[in-house]
């Protein structure tokens, strides 16, 4: 059997090296130019406790999601891996530990639960790891050696990668790991000579691996982030970690503050002083930030807020994914409080999108909420980043000499954007307040003033259209079935469309990183060209569907996908087929 793609899951508990197994495997296949996506799942809020899994999916073709099921489960922890067996595809395989000392109680071993349509490979991971290095630590490398043989992957690529990876730690560490790899490989070759094949394309240029969170941090730093302020929260903390490490050497600051309110306050304050600033949080943090975001709307101060969404409401499901913060992002403010809402679909968009977020925030003097999610933020994937590095970037509409003659902070303009000077710049003083204000910024509650200021704050969103990318339409242009979605669900949709297409059902997708504002014209044209529209998203309420319905008057078939786990492409394909059946009846 020749595999066009492979999905391999490692399952274990603390100390099993599950996450590093994923990294080594992913790093190796990326080093020869394959496309990879890696997803880690932790059962506990605190990493390193309880069971965790890491799944690596790779192919010669671009990968958009984690797919459905896994081809191989490596059960580093036997008992804990039992519940993962349902994920193993029919015809797939399981590697299980065969060097447990003593007696394993019947029924508590992974082997005892392997269904008959799956092959089980007993490999003495511990014994071989000990043979290699005198400790259990290299078990994961033994398993990688075993799977390298099982799928006829070239061992040299692993040995090269392992050598590079462990070089820093000294020769003996490299040697031990290479030996562990070899022992796993040889064991399988000797005991399970019959093997499968991975359809390896000609080696290409090495690809970079990046997580959504890292892409956000890098994108932000590369477009002039100067101040990062945040309070740790799963699954957004990594963004702060990257900034903590890499921002100070660039001359910026990373500040861990006492809570999310302090974080957003620091961000708004920094922007007030003209510094590009960002915070990252998750749903509960965004809820806390509502009032300061409102202040930024009212005072027309930029802010960039990343929300790496997790399951909610409240503290909800810290380690599980959901796309249910769209409503709070769009509407979570008192008064008529417009804000830019963006949602990247993958790491590449996370990188370029966050740079656009800064540009829009600064140019239009408004907060931008950037909705990533746990799956997108934490997963690692091969990405081709359109690297743009300009730490001095600025999109601020600066005051001209003319403006400064009689400077008013909230001057009414056609595009709604007033020239903006920051404290310390010469020539002007003004008041900033959360109260409604007049052109100078002084509190004013007159009806006409409130009306014109509200209009101004909304007019900016119309002007913004010129700076936002048009929506992308992907798939068969002449398809009768159109799909709209947002964020990380897009990946599963792209693959679901492909599955449906292989079964003869065409469809097309409209996707835009912009949730608000949107290129409405392109959406209207798209919806007009469809006989049936599906809106798919990972939340219970159908929050994006509600937005599209009210904005475009469509009557879509809504897929409110169960959250917690990334979306299944098969489920999408099935819906496309169902809708097609209805259409053709």
């Amino acid at each position, binding site marked *: 059997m020749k595999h066009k793609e492979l999905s391999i899951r490692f399952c274990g508990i603390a100390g099993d090296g599950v996450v590093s197994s994923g990294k080594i495997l992913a790093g190796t296949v990326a080093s020869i130019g394959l496309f990879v996506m890696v997803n880690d799942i932790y059962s506990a809020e605190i990493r390193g406790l309880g069971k965790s899994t890491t799944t690596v999916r790779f192919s010669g073709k671009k990968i958009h999601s984690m797919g459905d099921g896994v081809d191989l489960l490596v059960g580093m922890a036997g008992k804990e891996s039992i519940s993962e067996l349902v994920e193993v595809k029919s015809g797939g395989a399981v590697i299980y530990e065969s060097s447990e000392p003593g007696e394993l109680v*019947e029924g508590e071993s992974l082997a005892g639960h392997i*269904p008959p349509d799956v092959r*089980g490979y*007993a490999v003495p991971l511990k014994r071989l790891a000990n043979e290699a290095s005198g400790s259990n630590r290299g078990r994961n490398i033994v398993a990688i050696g075993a799977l390298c043989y099982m799928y006829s992957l070239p061992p040299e690529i692993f040995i090269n990668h392992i050598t590079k990876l462990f070089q820093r730690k000294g020769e003996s560490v490299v040697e031990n790991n290479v030996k562990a790899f070899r022992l796993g490989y040889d064991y399988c070759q000797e005991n399970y000579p019959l093997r499968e094949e991975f359809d390896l394309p000609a080696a290409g240029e090495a690809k970079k691996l990046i997580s959504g969170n890292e892409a956000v941090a890098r994108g932000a730093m590369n477009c002039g982030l100067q101040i990062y302020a945040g309070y740790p929260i799963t699954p957004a903390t990594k963004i702060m970690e990257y900034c903590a490490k890499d921002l100070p050497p660039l001359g910026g600051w990373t500040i861990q503050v006492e809570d999310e309110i302090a974080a957003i306050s620091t961000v708004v304050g920094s922007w007030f002083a003209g510094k590009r600033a960002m915070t990252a949080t998750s749903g509960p943090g965004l809820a806390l930030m509502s009032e300061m975001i409102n202040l930024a709307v009212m005072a027309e101060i930029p802010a960039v807020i990343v929300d790496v969404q997790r399951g909610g409401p409240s503290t909800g499901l810290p380690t599980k994914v959901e796309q249910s913060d769209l409503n709070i992002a769009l509407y979570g403010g008192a008064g008529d409080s417009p804000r830019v809402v963006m949602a990247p679909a993958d790491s590449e968009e996370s990188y370029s999108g966050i740079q656009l977020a800064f540009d829009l925030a600064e140019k239009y003097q408004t907060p931008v909420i950037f909705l990533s999610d746990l799956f997108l933020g934490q997963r690692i994937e091969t990405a081709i980043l359109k690297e743009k590095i300009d730490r001095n970037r600025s999109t601020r509409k600066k005051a001209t000499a003319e403006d400064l003659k009689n400077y008013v902070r909230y001057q009414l303009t056609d595009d709604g954007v007033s020239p903006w000077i920051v404290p310390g710049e010469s020539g002007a003083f003004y008041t900033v307040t959360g109260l409604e204000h007049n052109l100078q910024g002084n509190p004013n509650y007159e009806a006409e003033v409130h009306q014109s200021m509200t209009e101004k704050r909304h007019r900016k969103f119309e002007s913004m259209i010129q700076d936002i990318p048009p929506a992308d339409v992907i798939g068969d242009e002449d398809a009768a079935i159109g799909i709209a979605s947002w964020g990380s669900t897009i990946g599963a949709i792209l693959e679901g469309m492909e599955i449906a297409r292989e079964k003869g059902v065409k469809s097309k997708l409209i996707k835009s990183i912009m949730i608000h504002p949107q290129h409405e014209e392109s959406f209207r044209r798209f919806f007009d060209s469809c006989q049936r529209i599906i809106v798919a998203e990972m939340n219970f309420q159908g929050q994006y569907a509600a937005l599209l319905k009210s904005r475009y008057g469509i009557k879509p078939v809504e897929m409110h996908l169960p959250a917690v786990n990334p979306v299944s492409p098969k489920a999408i394909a099935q819906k496309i087929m169902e809708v097609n059946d209805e259409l053709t009846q």
Partner: protein
Amino acid sequence: MKYVIIGAGVAGVTAAETVRKIDSDGEIVLIGKEQFLPYKRYLLTEFFCGTISKEQLFSLSCEDLKRLKITFRKGQLAKSVDFENKKVKLFHNETVSYDKLLIATGGKPRIGPALRSFEKNLQLYYSLEDILLIKEKLDSVRTCVVFGQGLSTLDLMAGLKNLKKEVIYITKKPRAFFPLLQSNSDVDVHQFLSEKGVKIITNDRPVSVEKRDDKFIVETFNGEKLTADLVFAWDDYRPNIRFLENTKIDRKIGILVNEQLRTSVEDVYAAGDCAEIYHPKIKNYWINFGYPNAIEQGETAGKNMTGLNENYRIRETLVFHVLGKPFEARWWE
């Protein structure tokens, strides 16, 4: 009642099906060390030659196993049995307890001491794994050297000829000889093979098999030097009972059983190629080889495990198929 069967060949599978027919509630665990669903070993040559598909080899599907409520432990080797505590210990150290145990582990080709040091260079022809591995190489195989006396050797040669491969057969005897019965006396195997184009080297045996590049060099006792792409060689066929070493169960070449297929240990039965059955006529034990016998033994053992008391009737002969042609034989090897 919990029935555990070691070996998922025809004997084991027949026993499992028989038990289920009688006891609809009992727990049945079938343990097989191969990585496949239970399959019919005796059809391997048909699959090898492409006259049947891989799917046609299988005797039970996943659905059958589900329907029959058989827990199939696929690819799991029994490494020992603790008869005192009624537990089977598996390769990965899990123990499976039983109320009634059937050992149906069949037999396998054995390479004798003379060729053992060349084991790595020898190809067996016994399991589906062997066949699949041979099939992978087949396109680049032109010449095969075959050494052995058993019926499966005959089967193999017929298969290889069918696939248009050159075959050189080495036999210790003065003529190619297989233990076929008088009833087949119209067939002269030596002539039959010669006519099929098999080159036969008599009164000789391989003494070394070395690998050189992609080829194997076979040297014989009489000084012949042969070059082959594959070398098939084994000395005889032995029951798979090494995992019972250091146990009290009575055995000689195979596991000794009475006519009810009961072993010397209570609640433990044996059937198929691994069992030596008491033959009342010759007043000794012998292995009643062959798949029809394994099926019948599986059935008898299955019944008796559920509490019946049926006797197995010894067959004097076995029917062996060489590419569809039935031959009668007395011995397997």
